[in-house]
């Protein structure tokens, strides 16, 4: 596992995110709007994505996961920071250049019930990608290309003229995936792609995504709040809290050797099916609510709910780096963690 982390760092990243910031302005007034503050939805997030890997991003509701996805897709303009796709900063692009980049970065949406236009047939929904990017498929060829795509995704091939409401949730999500694949992208950003589905259908969709990843050498950014699914699909995992990355590492590093107290608390909350294990394990119960992103705590964002918090935490913001005590050690705990008092704690992982 340590070897794996070494090889990933040596590879060339396909997507580099540096200090990404998104503040949504809070305004007052109807006609003359005055800015009175900002919701700091994403506040300085950095990570890399490598070719062919899956990076899972987890965190509780409102921590900025979906905003990160929208920023990477350029659906929202970043307030600050850069996203480099093959060395090119895509946050500043617009028009033709942005459209060209969009061919390579696509998205699968959370809710299959709203992500497909109810008034378009499946053939039109997928065929539209070729209307927008006519260079991908010449006009006479489009129908065949759509059919090919539908054949890649299980049990949709025959229903090109159906409307979305005639499909089940799992089938709809597969249509969404087929649309994401249409342009042959290198990166697919999945914003909670299975959280609206039944558990049994989740497995089908996840397995399909893994199969497609091998087939087309895709890189995924997989956003979810279900820790066990993220562990199943991800090569590396990032944990977000209140607009910041708390900890990032390979799945074994994060799940078996978490060093950030928030990650440890998250993992201790994962439901365990075995009642005996459940009885014996330690639950870390966090007190209080997530602070408002409009007015986050000073220093470490997690300090208001952390049992290790000291004065240092309120004055000095911990950086996302390998903690001092683990530096140079050949242990799985030696991975990036934004905590002044990072240490291992025996947690029963998923």
């Amino acid at each position: 596992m340590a070897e794996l982390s070494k090889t990933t760092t040596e590879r060339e990243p396909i997507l580099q995110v540096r200090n990404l910031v998104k503040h949504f302005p809070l305004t007052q007034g109807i006609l003359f709007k005055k800015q009175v503050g900002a919701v700091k939805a994403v506040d300085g997030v950095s990570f890399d994505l490598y070719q062919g890997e899956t990076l899972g991003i987890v965190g509780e509701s409102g921590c900025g996961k979906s905003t990160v996805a929208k920023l990477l897709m350029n659906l929202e303009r970043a307030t600050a920071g850069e996203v480099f796709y093959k060395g090119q900063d895509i946050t500043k692009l617009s028009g033709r250049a942005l459209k060209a980049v969009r061919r390579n970065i696509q998205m699968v949406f959370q809710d299959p019930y709203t992500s497909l236009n109810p008034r378009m047939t499946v053939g039109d929904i997928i065929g539209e990608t070729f209307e927008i990017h006519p260079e991908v498929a010449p006009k006479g060829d489009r129908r065949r290309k759509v059919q090919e795509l539908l054949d890649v995704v299980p049990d949709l091939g025959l229903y090109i003229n159906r409307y979305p409401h005639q499909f089940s949730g799992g089938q709809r999500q597969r249509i969404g995936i087929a649309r994401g694949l249409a342009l042959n992208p290198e990166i697919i950003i999945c914003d909670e792609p299975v959280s609206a589905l039944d558990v049994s259908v989740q497995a089908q969709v996840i397995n399909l995504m893994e199969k497609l990843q091998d087939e087309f050498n895709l890189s995924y950014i997989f956003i979810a709040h279900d820790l066990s699914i993220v562990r199943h699909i991800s090569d590396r995992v990032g944990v977000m809290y209140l607009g910041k990355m708390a900890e990032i590492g390979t799945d074994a590093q994060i799940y078996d050797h978490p060093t950030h107290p928030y990650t440890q608390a998250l993992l201790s909350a994962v439901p365990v099916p075995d009642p005996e294990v459940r009885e014996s394990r330690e639950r870390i119960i966090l007190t209080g609510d997530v602070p408002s992103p409009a007015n986050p705590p000073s220093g470490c964002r997690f300090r208001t709910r952390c049992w290790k918090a000291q004065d240092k935490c309120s004055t000095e913001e911990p950086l996302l780096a390998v903690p001092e005590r683990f530096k140079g050690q050949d242990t799985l705990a030696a991975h990036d963690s934004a905590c002044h008092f990072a240490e291992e704690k025996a947690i029963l992982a998923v």
Partner: protein
Amino acid sequence: MPDPERPEPAGYDPVGPRPKEAVSPTGQGGPMDLALDEAESVEGIEKTAGPGASGPRERARSLWSDAWHQLRRNPVFIVSAALILFLVLIAIWPQLIASGDPLQCDLSKSQQGSAPGHPFGYDTQGCDVYTRTVYGARASITVGVCATLGAALLGSALGGLAGFFGGWGDSLLSRVADIFFGIPVVLGGLVFLSVVTSTTVWPVVGFIVLLGWPQIARIARGSVITAKQNDYVQAARALGAGNARMLLRHVAPNAVAPVIVVATIALGTYIALEATLSFLGVGLRPPTVSWGIDISNAASQIRNAPHMLLWPAGALSITVLAFIMLGDAVRDALDPKLR
């Protein structure tokens, strides 16, 4: 619009992953197996399941061709379209079914009931009510249809653009619409139309459009704002779609239903508004014949001669009903979920 959790189609088995062969589409006979597998689940949902499963590939279909196909089989549409066609025909050529002259009146027959050759009787001036009802269709339908079309097009274009782009343009348009909302219809009509000397229907149409567009604009703005927040609009943007494509293909078809409903209901109101304006002497003026003029003249005589009111009012009601039915049928045809 958020879709409530739809029940799984009967027979669809979400439990457990499918067998390996079924998952592999390239396997020999894979699609056929799936077709058999799926045929049960979709049976009864849609007719195309049959040809879809047996025939190799169907021809491409679109929302509009499907809607037209649906409309042609809808009795509500056929009845309303026939009625509207008939009304349009007599509006253009009233002499087709009425041989008399609506302005040829005989005072000695004032308010008399039906007589041979004059089935609807006579009005206060002794004019034939049947002939006047037939000839009145032209002015009333012109006003109703043109005012509705004008208000609907102007209102949905302005409201739709304001809702889609938002920002200061939206604020400006909303406030302007508020101002127009504030104009009282009767007072506004007296002021605007009393300075017009033309005897055609167009000043009346123009005035109704002027007062009618803000209502449609508000509805259109609201429903565009609802539609544009859907994920499929984001998905189109993520694919690189331009504003025109998003607005025309994704937002407009999903936002048009409330506009159609409100516009068809407004059509009746507009014909009635024309009657009100004519009654005040600022709408259509004689010698123009219109249902509005006749209804207002007859309203005060309802106890003496109800037939004078009944026939033009009945014609107006049937016209309004026909357009409401048409609007309803079109709205349903544009919603694939109702098929």
